[in-house]
């Protein structure tokens, strides 16, 4: 059997979570890399001179929270085939449910006066019940799923581009709600603080599992605050990824895939289209809500403008660049899309250090960067200065857009498609097919 990984003799083998040896090895390596990244990362940290050095914990943890929402997007768009550009809206719903239940506060009437918390003079108070995470996290998902069910009657009737446009409408309505309800959303520009990632039984002082200070976990291993949150979120991500995989390979997932492949044919075969589209929306919104709540509480403070069209398009990019609408593709896409800006940022910072030196690298750095007037490099190191040399922040948007276009034109199957081509090449090697 070892020599023929694609020979399957039972349905169980076909529907396994990791059906081939390669996938098992790849997943193990990915897990190893995650753990190494968290534990001081001797792999990358050993090359401090190079631009990839330094700690990756913060961007990677951010990526994981967005990855949970991306799993939901894959179920809706990749598996059910319903194009939605409103994922950020559902993330926002989840995040605000979380902050309403878990935010600082001590009862139904206790809206903390806004200025006390922020030091910003504003008459609005922010509401929070101060409940523990085991309540607010599932509630965030359920609230988003309910809102998803609520809009699904409209979404189920329209299809294709009309659905995409309708969901764009949701994003703008969500942005307006954020501006309109400062009791929940906080200030429109600066937002409010989210509950910390702490496992408490109820509202006691010392949490069951402490995740906001350095210390020893379970008497076994000494971890910093960031590492603790990273491990917690990674564990959640793995849990949700396996759950998503199981949804896809269950009766529900097959029904969703049937609707994607040909909705009328699915209905003829006895798959109730409306019902399963609604289920697809609910599952996807549940993931979005959880992802949004975790994203917001990991970052600590999120402004309502964050739940914008750009965040939604982020998920489209993840789906397309990862490719194929699978869980593995989603993980690949999330890593690629969310870490590229960080790599670009570090690369330019590294280039900035090289300008003073000599050799090819220094001249390249001089060509790319602008330091002072009379220099025509396209990248400016001083942030937010208007005019031609653009900041790295803006260049990252350009790179993001160009990547989407290039992938769509040259590799519509994304990284997954590239992998398939490499695999097929080596399968037939030394023959071409």
């Amino acid at each position, binding site marked *: 059997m070892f020599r023929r990984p694609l020979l399957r003799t039972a349905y169980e083998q076909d529907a396994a979570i990791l059906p081939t040896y390669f996938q098992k090895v790849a997943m193990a390596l990915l897990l190893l890399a995650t753990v190494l990244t968290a534990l001081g990362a001797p792999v990358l940290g050993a090359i401090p001179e190079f631009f990839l050095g330094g700690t990756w914990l913060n961007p990677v943890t951010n990526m994981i929270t967005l990855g949970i929402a991306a799993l939901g997007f894959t179920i809706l768009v990749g598996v059910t085939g319903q194009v939605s550009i409103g994922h950020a809206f559902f993330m926002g719903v989840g995040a605000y449910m979380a902050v309403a239940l878990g935010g600082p506060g001590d009862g139904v009437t206790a809206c903390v006066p806004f200025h006390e918390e922020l030091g910003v003079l504003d008459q609005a108070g922010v509401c929070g019940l101060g409940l523990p995470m085991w309540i607010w996290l599932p509630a965030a998902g359920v609230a988003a799923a309910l809102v998803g069910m609520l809009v699904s009657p409209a979404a189920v*009737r329209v299809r*294709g581009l009309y659905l995409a446009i309708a969901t*764009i*409408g949701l994003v703008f309505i969500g942005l307006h709600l954020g501006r309109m309800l400062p009791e929940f959303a906080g200030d429109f520009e600066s937002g409010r603080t989210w509950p910390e990632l702490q496992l408490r039984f109820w509202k006691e002082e010392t949490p069951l599992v402490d995740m906001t200070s350095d210390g020893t976990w379970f008497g076994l291993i000494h971890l910093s605050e960031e590492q603790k949150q990273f491990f917690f979120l990674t564990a959640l991500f793995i849990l949700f990824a396996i759950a998503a995989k199981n949804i896809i390979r269950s009766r529900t997932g097959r029904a969703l895939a049937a609707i994607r492949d*040909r909705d009328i044919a699915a209905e003829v075969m006895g798959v109730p289209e409306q019902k399963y589209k609604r289920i697809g929306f609910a599952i996807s919104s549940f993931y979005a809500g959880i992802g949004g709540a975790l994203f917001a509480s990991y970052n600590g403070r999120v402004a309502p403008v964050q739940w914008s069209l750009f965040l939604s398009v982020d998920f489209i990019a993840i789906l397309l660049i990862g490719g194929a609408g699978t869980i593995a593709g989603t993980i690949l896409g999330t890593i690629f899309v969310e870490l590229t800006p960080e790599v670009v940022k570090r690369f330019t910072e590294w280039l900035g250090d090289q300008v003073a030196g000599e050799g090819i690298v220094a001249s390249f750095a001089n060509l790319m960067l602008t330091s002072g007037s009379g220099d025509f490099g396209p990248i400016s190191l001083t942030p937010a200065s*208007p005019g031609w040399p*653009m900041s790295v922040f803006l260049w990252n948007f350009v790179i*993001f857009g160009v990547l*989407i276009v290039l992938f769509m034109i040259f590799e519509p199957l994304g990284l997954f498609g590239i992998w398939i081509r490499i695999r097929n090449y080596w399968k037939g090697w030394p023959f071409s097919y």
Partner: protein
Amino acid sequence: MDVTTFIQTLVKALALGAVYIMMGLGFVIIFKGTQVLNFAASALSMAGAMFMSILIADRGLPFLPFGNPLAGPEGETPSIGVWLSNLIFTLIIAAILGLVVERLTIRPMIGQPLFAMAVITLGLEFAIRPFNIDATALEGRSLGVPWGAEAWTVADALIPKSYVAAAIMALIAGLVVFFFYRSRFGVAMRAVAFDQEAAMAQGINVGRVFAIAWALGVALAALAGIAYGMAPFPPGGSVSQEIHPVLAFRVLPVIVLGGLDSVIGVIYGGVMIALAEVFAGQYLSQYNSILGSGYSTIVPYLVMLIVLVVRPYGLFGTPEIRRV
């Protein structure tokens, strides 16, 4: 109800409708010709408005070091003739931009699914927008409108000149599209929209139809961007970093209401959405505390969602025939 307020609100609504119609026509021409829903319209329209600003306010040519020969005498507000000639020049530049975009990103995708094409334009939106944002800076770029914020007074009601100008622009744009539709190219475009392969078999140059649709569509979007930059409209005579990047997304309800592929639908949709938006903004303002400030901007989306539930293909759109 106060008659003066009513007239002013009506004029404002019709002017906004004119802007929506121009932008919506750009969407529909591109969708008709190439089956692409142009999500990059915001960035392209803002780029057009920015070219106008470079031509008229900076008195330069985009990407070229020497000055703009069409700019009038230095140091004074441009005369209407100068401004209009620069406007036409801008539209030509925008059309060329459309040709370039079509050639580089849309042409390789002929025959791909609708969603793939739409996503390409979303990518374009994010690739082009930073250049606009960077070039306009926080305070915005002047568009050098010769009549500024001046207004005529008609029976106590103030009618800004810009509103009339926007209406005239929309009228001209509508006539151009109307005659284009009747012309040889228009017929070819409708044939391509109906069936690309059959059109090719009849000897229609599909590539050229694509190019013309994009050139015309982007020029219309730029025209809408410039029209919306004129003074009593919120950006206040300039290209704004806040408002212009979402302008086209505000027009999406218009084309959904009318139906993605209907020119007549855009005209009805533009007027209806603008009436709903402006009148809700004017006559529900006492409920501001409940609805939240700026609620009028989401009225179009609410109308759109309701229309989509009742009529999933808009009022004039062609229902997609689905076969098993």
